[in-house]
């Protein structure tokens, strides 16, 4: 069996003159929750957006190095970006349901990806259940998704990603705007999802990384400072800068 699900080899990333990632190498194992932490502008969101090529949307970017998803080089020009994004789902930091009904939000992508029409109802139910939203919305699937609360909207966004049946889920500070209760619900959901998915969680909340992830990488000024088991990093960090960060001396 493969050792990794995603493998980065000396990945560097430039916005015009600014280097957002500098020679980043790391491996993410199948079915783990991998945490990326670091202060603002350390490059963690950029890294996430390379993994499903959302970075293509920004003008004047340059990428060097390689990124393997299983054994496919996703940075190669031959890579089918649309298909890649179906395999690697992304949940943004701001809850962003589309201005449609709850059901429409969930079935839009699978339908366009050509999934069987008869399976849609089942898909809606399983993905909402997986995101622990089913009980709250099952009676109003045709209501506008914009009517949900912030926490519910974010779980809907998660469910929407799950409905695509991706292999990897990327989460970009998914709880940054949410209250503690919603945050706890999302974290609990993630620990359930880990059984089936590879999850990468970006957060600038070190406590959340400590609670929710299996392994962690610490990014500072576009570079990886330290990678390791989360428990180890938070108890005996090897690098002084990691220690400073997790003990809250800056960032």
């Amino acid at each position: 069996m493969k050792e990794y699900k995603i493998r980065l080899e000396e990945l560097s990333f430039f916005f015009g003159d600014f280097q957002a990632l500098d020679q980043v190498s790391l491996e993410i194992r199948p079915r783990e929750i991998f945490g990326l932490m670091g202060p603002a502008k350390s490059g963690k969101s950029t890294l996430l957006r390379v993994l499903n090529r959302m970075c293509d949307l920004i003008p004047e970017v340059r990428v060097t190095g390689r990124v393997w998803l299983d054994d496919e080089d996703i940075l190669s020009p031959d890579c089918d970006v649309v298909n890649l994004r179906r395999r690697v789902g992304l949940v943004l930091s701001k809850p962003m349901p589309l201005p449609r009904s709850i059901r429409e939000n969930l079935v839009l992508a699978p339908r366009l990806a050509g999934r069987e029409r008869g399976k849609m109802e089942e898909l809606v139910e399983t993905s909402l259940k997986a995101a622990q939203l089913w009980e709250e919305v099952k009676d109003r699937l045709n209501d506008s998704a914009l009517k949900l609360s912030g926490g519910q909207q974010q779980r809907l966004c998660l469910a929407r990603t799950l409905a695509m049946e991706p292999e990897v889920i990327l989460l970009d500070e998914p709880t940054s705007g949410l209250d503690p209760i919603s945050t706890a619900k999302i974290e609990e959901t993630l620990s359930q999802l880990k059984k089936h998915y590879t999850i990468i969680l970006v957060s600038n909340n070190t406590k959340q990384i400590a609670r929710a992830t299996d392994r962690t990488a610490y990014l500072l000024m576009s570079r990886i400072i330290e990678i390791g088991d989360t428990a180890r990093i938070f108890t005996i960090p090897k690098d002084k800068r990691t220690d400073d960060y997790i003990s809250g001396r800056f960032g």
Partner: protein
Amino acid sequence: MIPRLHPKVTQAAAKTLLWALTGLTLLILIFIIVNISIKGLPQMTLGFLFQDPQDMGRHGGIFSTIIATIYVTLLAIVLASPLGVGTAIYLTEYTREGWATRIIRFGSECLAGVPSIILGLFGFVLFVMKLGFGWSILSGGLTLAIMVLPIIIRTSEEAIKAVPQEYREVCFSLGLSQWQTITRIVLPSALPGITTGIMLSVGRSLGETAVLLFTAGSALRMPTTLFDSGRTMAVHFYILAREGISMPNAYGTAAILMISILLINLAAYTLMQRLVKRYS
């Protein structure tokens, strides 16, 4: 040296003057609407609307001109909408700001500034003469389409730009292609704005005279094919008024014309406000 007035006095004077001028403008507007309505509305009977004009418009109604207006306008909108909306999509979604967008946008602005009489000349020489369509619904519709194109491009572009960028990000991250993103999310969200542009274009088309006089002609018969000449309401009104054929009928035509345009524009405006409110 003139004694200096206290700033508060100057302010009061300036505000009074500005409000007075604004009031004057409003009065002019009210005068136009009230005058046309008072003299025109009594003419607006079912008979007037649904009878064909007789004796050069001296008697009878204006049914054939209503039909000609609808034909010409419909043709213009059907031709200009896909072109205009497509151009707007290209400008907003497919190109980064650069020389191509700048040229297209500048071209569209220039087109918006071309006076209708020039468009009339152009339609006359190209469609009526060179292509041999004659004075016809087809020539009129084609020329009108060029006239309303810049309106549709501009409003559609604004409407598409108003759709939050995050929606596009969400769609891409869900594995939708760019075209799917545009058709499933961007265009439906921008639809009220695009509709506004189309409605404004209808308004412009209804009131246009100079273009149609030289492209659609002024035959009073009911047009049955695209190649028939047709007299629109605005042209009919112009001829009635200018040649003094029948003042009551002129007023009646003007009232119908004006009220329908105002209603369309008002609806377009309301729709646009709703769009603005939704995304701000």
